[in-house]
């Protein structure tokens, strides 16, 4: 139900992978002498016996390398922290719902949490549903509702979905005067604890 950074992860994994392949591939190709004598965009590939970088051993070089390390490290580190923070699943719920009367005379502001709790409570009243969690996204004008319900394995799922849909649409029509712009129902199944006194009959044995 909560949004995760799937697309961001895939894009950055691809970019990181491409950088590694290009950098390491070119290094390996030069080292194996595959690019000897080749010129690409005006750059002549170095000979394989040349050092990778010919750095003079003096204090100025040490200072330059240290500065580059600090600057590059800070920039890369910041990107990594942001990437790590993006892994936290986000609700992306609606901000306050603003209910305006048709003649623009008044405005009622409602916390979406109130409506989410109310919908969850009403859905939990339905048969075969033991738990419901609701998230409202979007606006009062076009509410996008996602409900996660927990049902039992003996429930008829299509009819449970129909009940949930009917209950939510009916309730919203009564309270907000409109139906949800879209509705999603995620169904989870929890196994029923078997009691010593309970008897389970299969469909075929029930007919006999």
């Amino acid at each position, binding site marked *: 139900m909560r949004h995760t950074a799937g697309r961001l992860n895939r894009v950055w994994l691809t970019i990181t992978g491409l950088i590694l392949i290009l950098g390491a591939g070119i290094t390996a190709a030069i080292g194996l002498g595959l690019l000897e004598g080749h010129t690409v965009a005006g750059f002549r590939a170095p000979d*394989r016996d040349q050092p*990778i970088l*010919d750095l003079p051993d003096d204090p100025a070089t040490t200072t330059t390398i240290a500065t580059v390390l600090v600057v590059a490290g800070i920039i890369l580190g910041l990107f*990594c922290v942001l990437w790590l923070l993006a892994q936290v699943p986000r609700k992306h719920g609606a901000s306050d719902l603003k209910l305006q009367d048709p003649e623009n005379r008044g405005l009622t502001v409602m916390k979406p949490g109130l409506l989410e709790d109310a919908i969850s409570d009403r859905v939990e009243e339905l048969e075969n549903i033991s738990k419901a969690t609701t998230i409202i996204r979007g606006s009062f004008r076009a509410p996008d509702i996602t409900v996660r319900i927990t049902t039992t394995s003996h429930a008829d799922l299509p009819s449970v979905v*129909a009940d949930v849909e009917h209950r939510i649409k009916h309730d919203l029509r009564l309270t907000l005067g409109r139906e949800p712009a879209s509705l999603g129902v995620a169904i989870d199944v929890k196994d029923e604890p078997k009691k010593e006194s309970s008897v389970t009959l299969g469909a075929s044995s029930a007919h006999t």
Partner: protein
Amino acid sequence: MSTRTTRRSIRRRPSRSVPALIVALVLLMASVAGVWAGITALTGGSTAAIEGVTGAAGTPWSSQAAYIPSIAVALIGVVLIITALIPGHHNAHLVNHEGATEAALTRRGLKTYLEDHAMGIDGVDSARASLKGRQASIRIGTYALDRHEVEKDVHQRLRNRVDSLHLENAPRIRVNTSTLKD
């Protein structure tokens, strides 16, 4: 004129959080080490790390120390790209029903559903379901002597149960039976 954007589906493909966490942490550790080495050198401390960088940069391209690690790094790059490009399975199966609502049964829910129904069948003493792609495998354990009959019964009934769910791309049912001993 108003345009309407479509809602995000309630079922998701894997978000690749684990590889992203690993790569981000490795890069973060490398950048912290770089910053630490740089600051130490700039503040008059040890320059050993900088000398290490200078020494590594002076390695010839043809040195094994240069191109063998490069091949390993390139392979890691290939693995990252493959990880990013393989879409992975959705975490839920869409339920076909009358109505505009998008409904989906989670894979965990389907697993519980299959295990619970398998346990309700005569002769089944243990049941464990696993979902792989479009196949649901149910491993059942039985003390019954006619284990092949039990297996057939489980297969038939679970297939009927899955059909009754009206899932889009319903998984195929596969049953493995083992005889339990004490």
